């Protein structure tokens, strides 16, 4: 339980660049290090996080629940969101200083592309877990084509893919 809180506090404190960045973080700790869930379950948790409104971080509710039930889900969500809370308040006092500080900006400019690379890596790992059947691969390619071609909402595309899965699976 303590492990759960500490892990999610750490993830909340270090994920520069938004919700997607949490995916490689959670994958490394929750799936690989602590084996709280399988890759398949992790993928399903992200899918559920994407089809519900709100931030993607909400996937951590699933992980918390698996580890320690209802209390676990509250603790996981609270722990991953708590650093954010304090950062945003600190920002009210330090924002202008941070903005003017070239070292801070250089640090963030280095982190920016790196987290995108990390999301890419997590994408590969997740794709390996997701692409179990030929039809899933074809469906993923179709979703990709639709997303690139049309500016559709991501959650709509995912839900449509789920509906296809209901008939093909």
């Amino acid at each position, binding site marked *: 339980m303590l492990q759960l809180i500490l892990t999610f506090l750490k993830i909340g404190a*270090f994920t*520069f*660049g938004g919700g*997607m960045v949490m995916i490689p*973080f959670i994958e490394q700790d929750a799936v*690989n290090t602590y084996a709280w869930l399988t890759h398949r379950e992790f*993928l*399903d948790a992200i*899918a559920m996080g*994407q*089809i*519900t409104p*709100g*931030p993607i*971080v*909400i996937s951590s*509710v699933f992980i918390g*629940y698996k580890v320690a039930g*209802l209390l676990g*889900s509250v603790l996981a*969500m609270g722990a991953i*969101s708590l650093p*954010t809370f304090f*950062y*945003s*308040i600190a920002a*009210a*006092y330090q*924002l202008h200083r941070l903005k003017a500080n070239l070292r801070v*900006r*250089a*640090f963030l*400019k*280095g982190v*920016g*592309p*790196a987290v*995108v*690379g*990390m*999301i890419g*890596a997590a*994408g*590969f*790992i997740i794709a390996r*877990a*997701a*692409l179990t*059947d030929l039809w899933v691969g074809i469906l*993923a390619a179709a979703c990709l084509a639709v997303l690139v071609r049309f500016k559709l*909402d*991501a959650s709509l*595309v*995912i839900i449509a*893919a*789920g509906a296809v*899965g*209901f*008939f093909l*699976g």
Partner: protein
Amino acid sequence: MDAPIKGKGAAQPPALLKIAGVLLKVGSTGFGGAMPMLSLVHTEYVEKRHWVSQEEFEEAVMVGQIMPGPIAVDAITHIGYRLRGWPGAIVSWFCFILPSFLLMLALTLFYMRYGGLPQVVGIFKGLGAGVVAVIAVAAWRMGKPHLKNVKTAFLMVAALLALLLLKVNVVLLVILAGLTGMALFRKPSDFQPSRNPMKRGAR
């Protein structure tokens, strides 16, 4: 030190209950990630209710991008603090997260109970295909601007390989990338003015 400024656009700071109402609504209807959600908040806070000015809102979005954590939660908590101090921050943070927490909990319970049924397995295989596509597109869209510069392109590819092949610890990787950034970007000319994302997101 920059003290928190009360919303300049508003004659009087909005009641906590009103903030709660708006954020519960956005939290339960805002799909598609940080920027689409923030454009809903922008409509309510800036256009309809004039709680904060356009400049203040843009600054909050920037806070979301600089500070770790989900961009929308960062930005909304920051505005809450500037409007009503600590109570405003707590209410904003809590009410924005609550609806999606409850929905996610309901889905989790469903998954735990019915996740093994063949039809449900099929649904999740399909959802997984969609998720892979969404992550690929997100990584591509986020990564494209970094490809234009040799240094940022190098950092991006290096991080990808370090995580994929060497399984380097993610926190260590973030810190290393930041330090590399501090070594690589020393001239003011390294920082072109960044484009403002709300100009595209806001309707």
